[in-house]
Every structure is written in C-alpha cells, then in structure tokens.
C-alpha cells in the first residue's frame, strides 16, 4: 500500500546538507496501523510531512529516497499534483485542531472543498457528502454543524472535522501526526476509538505518529521507534513491548509509568539526543547508551532482523531473554 | 562594544547587500554633513547672477540655481540640516516615548489614562498636528523638530508600552518581582536592556520619516528659515523654475529620497533580526 524507502530529508545548502531524517524506510499494509514513536525533535513529524508532500517551502527538502503509494512514485509531488496524477488517496490530520481549520470559513465549505477535488462533485451533492462525512465521524447534529465556524466547536469536535476532511479524500492511507496530544484525556480516548474503527470499517491504513508509548500500545499493529532521524527498531506491537531489542526502546519502556510503579521516581535516559549535523560515523545512540562499546562510536551499526518482522539498528542488540 | 558584538550587529547587513547600500548612503550623508565646508567646492551662499540657472557642467556638477549659487555646495551643506532634524526628532520621540511607555505599562492605572491621551493625539494626522503646532509656536528649526517629533512620540510610546507589557509577563521578570525587586531595579535591569534593539529599529524608521516630514514643512515655508540651506528649502525656492531648469529640483529631491530610503533599509534589516515576538509590534507602517 504505502512503501517508504530510504527517505532522507535535509536542511541547509546542497553542498553541506544536514539530514534531519536519515534513511527512513517502512512498509504499511492494507488496513494496518503503524505507530511511529519518538521524542520531540526526532524527525517523526518531518517524516510524515515528507511522505505527504507537505514539507514547508522554503525549508527542508527530500534529498534521497522514495515514497511509493500502491507502487506509484509520488516522492516529490505535492498533494494536488498527486490528485492530478491519480494518486491522491492519502490524507493527513494534524496535531493542533485549534489552528488547523480556517477560522473565517464554514465547516461545511471546508469539508466540501476536499469532496469537490476527490469526488468531482459540486453544489448540493458536495454538501450532502460533507454531511455524510460528519455523520461518519460521529459529529453530533451534523446538518447544523455544516454552517458553523471552527471557533464555535470544541477541540474534540474540531479534530472530528479534520478527520472528516481527511476522509473526504477517500484515503487508503491516513497519516495522523499526534492527533490527540492537544485534547483532554477523555476526548483523546474517543478520538482514538473513532480512528481505530474507521481504519477497520474503511480498510484504511494509518501511520500514527506520537511520543506517547501508552497510546501506541493500545492502537498500533506494528511500531517503529525513531531516534535522531533514524528508525532504530521496528516490530509488531507485542514483540516490541514484550521484548525490546534496542537499548533506546528499552529505555523508553523503563520511563513509562505503570500501575505498580507507585510513587517511585521514574528512571530517565541520561543525556540529550545529538543535534542534527553533529552525528558522526558511529551509532546515533552511542552517547547515551548504557551498553556502549568501542566499535559503536566508530562504525555505523548494521540493521539486523532479530526475528520475523523485527528489525533493530544496533550492533549489540539486547538479547530477547525472558519476555518482560 | 566588543569585536564579536560589532560583528553581530553587522550580520543583518552582510546578509543583505541592499541593506549595506543603505548603511553606505547613511555614512556618506554623515560625512558630507561633518566635512561640508571642506567638501563643498563653492560657498553655498555666494550669489553670481552671471551664471544663473546653468545646467550641470564641469565647474558646477549639479548646476546653479536662480541666484547663480552652486547647487552641489548647497546640497552638501543641507546634509547638516537633514541630520539635525532627523536626530532631533528621534531624540525627542525617544526621550518622551520611552518613559511614558514604560511607566504606563508598569502602573496600569496611570497607564490607562496616559494611553488614552496618546490615542487622542493619534486622532490628529501627523502632518496636521505638526502644522497646528507650528501655528502656535511659529516656524523655526527647533519647532519643526518638536512638531514632527510629537507625531512620532505617539507611535514610539505605543511600541514601548507594548514591549514593556510583554516583558513584564516574562517568567524571569515575574520571578524577579516576586522576590521583591523594586521598580527601578526592574526597569534598569530587565526592561531597558531589552528595549535597546527594538528601539534602534524604531529610531531608524522615525529618522527616515522625519526627513519626509521636514521636507514637507520646508516646502510649505513652515520649516527651517529660508536662508538656511536644506533640501526642502531648495525645492521650495526652485519649484517655479522646474520647466526652465528641471535639474535644479532633481538633486535635492534625490538626497531626501536617498536618506529616507537608506534609513528605511537599515530599519528593515534590523527589524528582521529582532525577536519574533517583538517584531509584530512593528507593523508595516514604520
């Protein structure tokens, strides 16, 4: 369905590029939910914008790698160019529902605009379709909300509108960039449930980006962990949470509060991720890794498949041992 | 200022060649004003009816006016008036705008009253305000500075007020206040140092627009006395000769444009390196 291969996004001049996303690869199958998890600044949002063809201009650019949607190369194409080329079935929802809708245009218009492009409808049928989409995202009183302005809706309702706009693109792949981070916890649960249900019902694949391991554990089928612009580990959700192989993933798990952690102080990973452009030849995690060895600092670690469908970017991965 | 500090300030100009041009013109004007008696080839007041209205030539590069005075010499000497008016207006605007703005932001009750008064003054278009003041005070260089400066006092006050309000909200200022820092300490330590860069931007724009305001007053005969050479006065005296001697008005006018343009360029370059939170206080109106 969606295949991303060696995607490299860079800033700075052509002669001395600084890679903020370096050789990211992943596959997304029909109806599958892939979680992309990492600290803020690790390049996960850049990855999603690059995949969607929405990198801000002037700014970062795709220096290498390919994005294939159903086998068709859409790498350097913006969304409208993809629509023209007949590969427009990818959509995205964003982190900030408060600012992601145009404040001076009605909800109905904003949804119908996407309907017109993707369904080639216009006039009343487009509005009908917009209402139908609002029903699909469980918006209370959809017919009324068509003529509402964004400021009249709550945060959760706005995010539902954003999802409706995305669905108007009839996506095979939906990219969700921290869609629930800005919402209250109860609303968060509802929106996650809605996304899960829509993926099942519409057989839609989703790339779900978050820094929240808890959300990933509930929602994703597979998980990729990103660190300093690289994917350091990819595995099925159970394998990853049960037997993390990368030292960084393991560190993240240890930082998660659990029910029996009580008042105990949570552990942290010492140090800071390297700034883009300061990464040397060795492993990007070497400076913070508890099990670092001499070769880690000088040689790039290999990508090893430690078991079926479980990749890790580490020269000395944790042994699986007993499941946690 | 240390060498690094100087480089930091020059950075926006190096990044933008056109801003460097602005800095160059400004420097040229300052040099012309300082060394006018040595740079000017003739006495700017010397009248010679035999060479009235000569077009530019090898002896008189910018030609001569209706009294046979050398235009180039007069243009060079006029740079003094331009700098005097410009810096005078800037100093007046800052000397009034900064205290009023800072105090208004720190003492909300007083501030409310003062800012309402600023609003009232802003209801008068700036040139009209200047004209009214000239009527009351009479035309002179000092009064021109005051009359033009009053219009920029209001905008400067507004900007300083906005900046100070924002600074007051900053966590470190709040923290300093909560630890019992006095108002004077607050102003000296936290507020004034942060106002320096934005005020430099404001000063550039005020200087630029003061040139245009002064030229207008001179042109109307309500600015500097006619016997003092200034670009505006030169335009006012020669305007009736425009069809017979079009070059007469060209050079003084170009000097006004060049000075205002260069200050605008400098202000623009400085604004771009301001803290983005402060930048929005400078609308595109200068």
């Amino acid at each position, binding site marked *: 369905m969606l295949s991303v291969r060696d995607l490299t996004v860079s800033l700075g001049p052509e002669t001395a590029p600084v890679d903020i996303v370096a050789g990211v690869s992943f596959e997304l199958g029909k109806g599958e939910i892939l979680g992309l998890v990492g600290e803020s600044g690790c390049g996960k949002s850049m990855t999603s914008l690059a995949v969607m063809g929405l990198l801000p201009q002037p700014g970062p650019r795709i220096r290498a790698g390919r994005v294939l949607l159903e086998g068709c190369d859409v790498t350097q194409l913006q969304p409208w160019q993809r629509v023209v080329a007949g590969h427009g079935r990818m959509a995205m929802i964003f982190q900030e529902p408060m600012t992601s809708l145009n404040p001076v245009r009605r909800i109905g218009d904003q949804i119908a605009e996407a309907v017109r492009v993707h369904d080639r409808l216009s006039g009343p049928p487009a509005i009908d379709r917009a209402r139908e989409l609002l029903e699909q995202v469980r918006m209370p009183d959809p017919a009324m909300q068509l003529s509402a302005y964004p400021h009249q809706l709550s945060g959760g309702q706005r995010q539902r509108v954003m999802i409706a706009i995305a669905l108007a693109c009839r996506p095979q792949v939906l990219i969700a960039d921290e869609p629930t981070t800005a919402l209250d916890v109860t609303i968060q649960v509802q929106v996650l449930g809605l996304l899960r249900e829509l993926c099942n019902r519409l057989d839609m694949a989703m790339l779900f980006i978050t820094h929240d391991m808890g959300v990933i554990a509930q929602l994703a089928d597979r998980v990729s962990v990103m660190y300093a612009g690289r994917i350091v580990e990819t595995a099925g959700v159970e394998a990853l949470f049960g037997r993390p192989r990368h030292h960084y993933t393991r560190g993240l798990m240890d930082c998660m509060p659990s029910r029996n952690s009580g008042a105990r102080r949570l552990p942290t990973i010492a140090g800071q991720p390297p700034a883009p452009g300061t990464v040397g030849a060795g492993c990007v995690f070497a400076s913070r890794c508890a099990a670092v060895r001499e070769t880690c600092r000088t040689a790039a670690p290999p990508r090893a498949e430690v078991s079926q469908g479980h990749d890790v970017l580490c020269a000395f991965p944790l042994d699986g041992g007993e499941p946690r | 200022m240390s060498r690094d500090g100087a480089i930091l300030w020059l950075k926006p100009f190096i990044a933008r060649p056109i801003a460097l041009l602005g800095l160059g013109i400004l420097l040229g004007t300052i040099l012309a004003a300082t060394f006018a008696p040595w740079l000017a080839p003739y006495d700017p007041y010397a009248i010679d009816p035999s060479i009235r209205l000569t077009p530019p030539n090898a002896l008189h590069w910018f030609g001569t006016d209706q009294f046979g005075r050398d235009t180039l010499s007069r243009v060079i000497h006029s740079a003094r008036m331009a700098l005097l008016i410009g810096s005078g207006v800037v100093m007046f605007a800052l000397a009034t705008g900064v205290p009023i703005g800072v105090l208004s932001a720190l003492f909300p009750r007083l501030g409310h009253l003062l800012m309402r008064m600023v609003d009232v003054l802003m209801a008068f278009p700036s040139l009209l305000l200047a*004209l009214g003041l000239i009527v009351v005070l009479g035309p002179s260089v000092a009064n021109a500075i005051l009359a033009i400066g009053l219009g920029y006092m209001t905008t400067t006050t507004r900007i300083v007020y906005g900046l100070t309000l924002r600074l007051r909200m900053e966590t470190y200022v709040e923290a300093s206040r909560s630890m019992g820092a006095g108002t004077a300490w607050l102003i000296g330590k936290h507020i004034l140092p942060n106002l320096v860069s934005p005020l430099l931007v404001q000063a550039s724009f005020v200087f630029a627009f003061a040139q245009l305001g002064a030229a207008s007053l001179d042109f109307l005969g309500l600015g500097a006395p006619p016997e003092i050479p200034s670009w505006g006065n030169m335009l006012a005296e020669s305007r009736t000769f425009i069809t017979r001697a079009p070059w007469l008005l060209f050079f003084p*006018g170009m000097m006004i*444009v060049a000075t205002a343009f260069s200050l605008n360029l400098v202000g623009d370059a400085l604004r771009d390196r301001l803290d983005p939170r402060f930048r929005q206080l400078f609308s595109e109106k200068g």
Partner: protein
Amino acid sequence: MWSYALKRAGTTAVTLLAASIIIFAFIHIVPGDPIYVLLGDTATPDQIDALRHQLGLDQPIILQYLTWIGHVLEGNLGRSIFFQAPVLSVIADGAETSALLATMTMIWVTLIGVPIGMIAAVRHGTWLDQGLSGAAMLMASIPTFWVGLYLILIFAAWLGWFPSSGYPSIFEGGLVNLRYLVLPSLALAAPNAALILRLTRASMLDVSREDYVRTARAKGIRPWQVVVRHILRNALLAVVSAFGFTFAALLSEAVVTETVFALPGIGRLVVQSILRRDYPVIQGVILVIVVVYLLINLIVDLSYRLLDPRVELQ
C-alpha cells in the same frame, strides 16, 4: 456585535471630546490676541472691550468652551476672518476637491498596492519579490510634492496629457474634469500604495504559515485555490484595518499635494489660512479632519469585525 459597536462608538465619542478640547485650546494659545487679528493694530480699547464682550471672550474659559462646542454641534464653526464667511461654508467649498482626490487616491492605492503585494508574497524569496519589496520601500521614501512636480513637468508641461494645476468642479464641467485630479492622485498614491503593498505582502506571508493553509494544501486543491480561498481573504482582513490609517495619512499629505497642484481643496485651505493667520478656519478644518478620520476608523473597525466571524463569541 451590537454591544461592541456601541462600545466602540462610545470610545470614539470620548476621543472626539478630548480632541475638541485640544482644538479649542489651540485658539487660546496662538500667539497674539485674536481680537487684534480681527481688529488690527489701530483699534481703541473701547472697541476691543466691546468685541471681547460680543465674542464672549470675557466669560470663564469653561463657559466659552461650552458655548463653542454648542455652536459646533449646531454646525456653526465660526466666521472666517479672511473670507468674511461662515467657516463651514468655506470648508464645504473645498470638500468636493478633497473628497474626490482622496477617493481617486484610494483607488490607485488599492489597484497598485494589493495585487502587487500579492504577487510579491506568492513569489516570496525570489528576485521578483526582492525587487518589488525594494521598489516599495523606495516609493515610501519619496516626498509626494517632489514626485508631483516632476509629474507636472513630464505629463503636463512636456507631453501635455493632463492639466498641470487647478480643478474646476465636475458639477460645472462634467466628469472630464476628473483629469485634473489624475496627476495629484498618482503623486499622493505612490507612498501609500507602497505601504499597502508591503502590508499585503507581509500579512499574506503570515497567513501562509498558518496551520490551516497546510490543511488546505493537504486536501489536494491547487495552489492558486489555496491562495484565493485560504490566504487572500484572511490576509486582506489585516489590510482592511490599515485602510483607515492610510486615509488619515492621505488627509494630511493632501495638504502638500494640493499646494503643489493648486487644487482648491481643504489641504490648501489649511496652508493658506496658516499664512493668513485665519485662525477660525484652521481650527474648523482641523476639527473636521479629526471627525472624518475618527469616523472612518470607526467604520473600518466595525466592517473588519463584520468580515471576521470569530467576533460573534467575543
């Protein structure tokens, strides 16, 4: 909306009241007693006292202010010393020229400033953008009267396309008389168009960085549709609010332009009245301009609110 409009109208009234005090004070601080201006140097003390009493100048200052503001509210702005006519009718004579000049200038400003600002913003960062922005800054740095003089030289004296000065009423000579205002309005438009250009560009760039523009692009609509439907309207909201400011700048800059082109407008009236020491006219014109300026700002502000649906909740 209505409560906002009322509140906004209230502040305007208060500002106007305060401004009227300043304008009233003006005539009392001008050098020389206005009585001498009226009667000349040869007046006897008796004549002076009589006039002083007749004008109410021997009454307490507050009473004088109340009398004056009462007259103003009745439309009586006093008598011009020079014209020996009511100030209001003297101002009304210049109003046609000034209103048409301002309108024509605003048309140029809109036609030049907004589209070119849009082009600069859409081509952001290219040489075209830098050229246009630089040109705008240059235009904002040019004195209007200087441009005016060269426009007269080129288009009136040399080419003879337009008249160089004066303005006969369109009610007497028909709409062709508008050609008298072409050069003055162009001169006056140059710096103001430059300001609107820079403002349009800046606010379009601000809006284009908004999240909702990214949402619009994600929908797959074409770039020009993104510009027209999502960036332009939101950016122009900011530009609309600058129109009041521009109009104000225009009222005062017209003072110089009308002098250069010898237009019988309010601006030239101010300058001539200053030179003639016709204080009642100066006072009246300043009052009228301030009222017009405040009213325009009020209208602009309210229409801005009307265009922006977000205010319903505020």
